[in-house]
């Protein structure tokens, strides 16, 4: 029963994260940076499922992103890799709590921003200074960590409720 509920929550998270990103977070900027609900959703899925589910979730999310934004496979590859990394770290080292979400978000966003910056640099043949990039990165991390903590808190409560119900069934 719990697996079915988890699957439903994962599918809902997929749809909600895309809609939230397109209609809410794309219109919020802090010093020119926007929250990335898509990578946050990969992290949240990674915290409560195994590496295989996380990787496939990230793959589908990347594919959908490429279709919506016309980026020809870029996000399919990037999100797949991030899904595997996040799934592996989550499975082996992190527990299901809000601090794990914060650390994974900071790590995931750092990797994503570096890759996107390298892509932007390659396309435009210009660059920004290292300290400038670090400043930009910190803003992006803070923004995403703030949002990830809220969602991780809510998801944590849902998970605790499900576990309590499961225990009640057995006892």
């Amino acid at each position, binding site marked *: 029963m719990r697996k079915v509920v988890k699957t439903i929550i994962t599918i809902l998270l997929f749809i909600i994260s895309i809609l939230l990103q397109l209609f809410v*977070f794309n219109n919020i*900027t802090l010093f020119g940076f*926007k929250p990335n609900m898509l990578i946050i959703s990969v992290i949240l899925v990674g915290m409560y499922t195994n590496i295989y589910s996380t990787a*496939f979730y990230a*793959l589908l999310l990347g594919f959908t992103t490429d279709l919506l934004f016309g980026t020809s*496979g870029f996000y399919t*590859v990037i999100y797949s890799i991030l899904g*595997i990394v996040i799934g592996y770290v989550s499975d082996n080292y992190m527990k299901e709590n809000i601090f794990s979400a914060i650390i994974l978000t900071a790590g995931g966003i750092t990797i994503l921003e570096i890759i996107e910056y390298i892509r932007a640099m390659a396309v435009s043949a210009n660059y920004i200074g290292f300290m400038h990039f670090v400043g930009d990165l910190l803003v992006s991390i803070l923004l995403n960590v703030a949002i990830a903590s809220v969602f991780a808190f809510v998801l944590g409560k849902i998970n605790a409720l499900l576990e309590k119900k499961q225990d009640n069934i057995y006892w």
Partner: protein
Amino acid sequence: MDYGIDFSDNVQKRKKKLIFIAVFVVLVIMFVAFFFRNSNSKVVSKVATVISKPIIVVYDLFNKDEIDSMDLETLRAEYDELKRQKEELEIQALESQKILDDNKMLKEMLDIKKEYQHYKTVMGKIVYREHDNWTQTFTINVGSNDGVQVDQTVVHKDGLVGYISSVTDTTATVTTILDVSTSVSVNISTINEPAVVNGDLNLKSQNKLKLTYIPLDTEIAVSDMLYTSGIGVKYPSSIPVGRIIEVVNNKNDVNRYALVEPCVDISKISEVAVIIN
């Protein structure tokens, strides 16, 4: 001798992991190959239309036409007679505001049409913007079904916005002039000399452009206007691009550049026109 250690479990786990990795890599390659193989065909367009259609439906749900609120008004008036006058006044005020907003939007669209009346244009609304922090693109609700094609110019009544970078049946992605991959050939108004304007990573958060390849021995000044030169296939000529706000004189003339404020505040617009002819 039995040492009590079962190795078969580890072998099973390893096999499972290897199979997963193999299947996953094949899937990633398949998906990426799908994009590269079908980049010019209708297949990607059709699949992308299926994905983007529900999103357009959700967008339309929150952007209903005025006629729907009239049904709501009738239902509300009938439902509460005691507060009817107060509610009617509130609804009328809301309707008036909605009418003003619709009027403003329609006026903007008309202004765009008037500004570019010598071109054939298709009006589009911005449905959603890019989600990453390093590109400057957005998606509009018109596509190949409306005659939109890749590399067509996108404008607003105030000036140049960008160009169409990808198209599906019902939507199109616009890469704006603020994007670091975009270069626009411009004429500097006061001296009628060509230069190049492009997005810059350092100016990304300020929504400014960089004017480079300024001809040697020419004097440019703050407030000089820039218009598209028409050089190259992408942009028609004489479309306003921006205004020079700062000239940076480096040690030698070759490296000097200027900062440009675009005519169009791309973060605030909601309608654009695509020049299809």
